[in-house]
């Protein structure tokens, strides 16, 4: 069991473009973490660097303050589960599960006991003596996961989108199982996924990765309420955060002649920066629509209303941007002009795509 630290990590496969770019990060011991990001953002590369299957072009990997760059996966004592099932065809399910333990030359009785424990956990008892080759894809993936979980004293268990091939209803069950196992073993787990729901149900804390960098590390709630980067705002939530490009005008920001009120700290941050890439962002959940203009309201045109059963998503035109607003299922909209209001604290300022001017720093 170990904390995992990455220092100034960079990796390039072709020497031209970086899959990982000067990344610094610390995963404290014992947490259940998700590494969330779109395809091709470097998630799997990062995972393989942590496990030692790939050695980084630059930077250091530390387990409990020891640099492990030169160590093999075996020396790092890492368990890893891959995206697609990897089973040893010629062995039975039992032999598959026992394989990592057998390679560690553990006592036979102990191996038997561990295998039974894991088989029970993953509902594999009935197929223990079948050849692994004859099983279905999701049974095979359960074996892959079992091999990762069967070792007790691992530094960390890494999952690389392990539920891709699994049936939806089983997915949920297995994710619960993983969480249970985590609570029981108190081992560091890192779970790579591109699915925010999967990340949020598994992890205590989520690291969001974008273009080779971890742009935010925090609880699902903080990712939602305080997206540290415009990408996090856009990627987390459904639909994602609304953004508008604004211009600096003395002490305030304007878009299409509409001025926005900023907090004092936001104004200070704006004054201290000379970037022209200024954006404002707000979650669809924090916008209210009304028929009458009130103080601090902005006029919008309603483009469409789509019902999702429990809620509606309204598409509106505002300051040359298309925004989304999430409203209750029974809210009605007619053709009259509408006005949008929101709590000032929900409006976020982004300078060069990074969150700026917040009262509390969620970094």
């Amino acid at each position, binding site marked *: 069991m170990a904390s995992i630290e990455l220092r100034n990590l960079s990796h390039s496969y072709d020497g031209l473009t970086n899959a990982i770019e000067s990344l610094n990060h610390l995963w404290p011991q014992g947490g259940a973490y998700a590494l969330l990001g779109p395809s091709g953002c470097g998630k799997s590369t990062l995972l393989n660097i942590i496990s030692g299957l790939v050695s980084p072009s630059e930077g250091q990997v530390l387990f409990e303050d020891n640099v492990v760059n030169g160590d093999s996966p075996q020396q790092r004592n890492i368990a*890893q589960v891959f995206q697609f099932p990897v089973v040893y065809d010629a062995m039975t399910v039992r032999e598959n599960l026992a*394989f990592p333990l057998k*390679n560690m030359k553990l006592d036979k009785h102990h191996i038997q006991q561990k295998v039974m424990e894991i088989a029970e956990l993953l509902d594999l008892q009935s197929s223990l003596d079948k050849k692994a080759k004859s099983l279905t894809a999701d049974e095979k993936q359960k074996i892959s996961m079992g091999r990762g979980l069967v070792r007790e004293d691992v530094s960390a268990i890494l999952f690389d989108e392990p539920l891709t091939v699994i049936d939806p209803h089983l997915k949920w069950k297995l994710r619960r199982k993983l969480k249970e196992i985590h609570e029981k073993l108190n081992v560091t787990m890192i779970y790579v996924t591109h699915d925010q729901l999967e990340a949020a149900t598994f992890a205590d804390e989520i690291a969001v990765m974008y273009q080779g960098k971890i742009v935010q590390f925090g609880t699902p709630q903080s990712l939602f309420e305080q997206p540290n980067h415009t990408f996090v705002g856009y990627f987390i939530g459904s639909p994602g955060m609304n953004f508008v490009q604004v211009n600096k005008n003395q002490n305030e920001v304007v878009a299409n002649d509409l001025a926005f009120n900023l907090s004092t700290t936001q104004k200070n941050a704006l004054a201290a920066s000379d970037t022209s890439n200024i954006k404002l962002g707000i979650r669809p959940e924090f916008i209210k629509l009304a028929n009458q203009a009130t103080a601090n309201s902005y006029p919008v045109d309603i483009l469409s209303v789509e019902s999702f059963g429990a809620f509606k998503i309204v598409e509106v035109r505002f300051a040359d941007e298309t925004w989304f607003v999430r409203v209750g299922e029974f809210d009605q909209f007619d053709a009259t002009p509408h006005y949008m209001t929101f709590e000032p604290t929900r409006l976020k300022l982004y300078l060069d795509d990074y969150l700026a001017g917040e009262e509390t720093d969620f970094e």
Partner: protein
Amino acid sequence: MNKVQNNKAWWLILPMFALVAFSAIIPLMTVVNYSVQDIFDQNTAYFVGVEWYQEVLRNERLHDSLLRQFIFSFSILAIEIPLGILVALMMPKTAGWKTSLTLILLALPLLIPWNVVGTIWQVFARGDIGLFGWAMNALGFEYNYTANAIDAWLTVVLMDVWHWTPLVALLCYSGLRAIPDAYYQAAKIDRASRWAVFRYIQFPRLKAVLIIAVLLRFMDSFMIYTEPFVLTGGGPGNATTFLSQTLTQMAIGQFDLGPAAAFSLIYFLIVLLVSWLFFTSLSLTDKDQLKQGSASS
């Protein structure tokens, strides 16, 4: 609903059938024809029934050749298959000039015509001007493949290993390349030893190509003719006279077409039988697993 039976599709296999008839069935039937007749010249032949079959079953010369044939085939299989796997395992794993070079070097012996292979080794193994023969003698071994039966055997086996191990290696190499990287990664994570990687990942996935390699090498070596004929001419004495050479001598040298044809048919059946045995025994384990799988699911 009545199921309409339409047998017209059978006509579609007619071209294939005609082709097989010309390439295999008609020549085979000619041999069957010879084996039941005593032929004196083009116009004089007597039907003798199973007489030739009875005779060849008592023919010591043929039995000795057949035994030599089996010993030869099994020895070259015992060497070429493991050696081919070993060579394939040691070949470079990523594409690049090293891989291309290895593949070309490996394929060279396969490109040489069989009688040239025989000639190359005939010269190579000579004690006076051949590098191999000279080196053996210089190292203190009394080596002479034209006089000593064991030396002749050694040379013939060595020649076959040189000529055909590349085929096994190339087949295995293609089999190894087809294994996804994830398996090796998982093995590393699972702390598998080099031997365990071979035993549980590489070997099970090589089985399919190994069946082909064993079958090809068995059939080819069991019918070997040209190379030993050029190299040793079957000698010294009859030490390296294999079955096809004995049969050729009988049929063309002595014009004993009948007994030669009768034994050719037995020869053919043996090849068929042994190939079938290899094939079923090697693919049996897979079938067992399939049955198990389908019974339980």
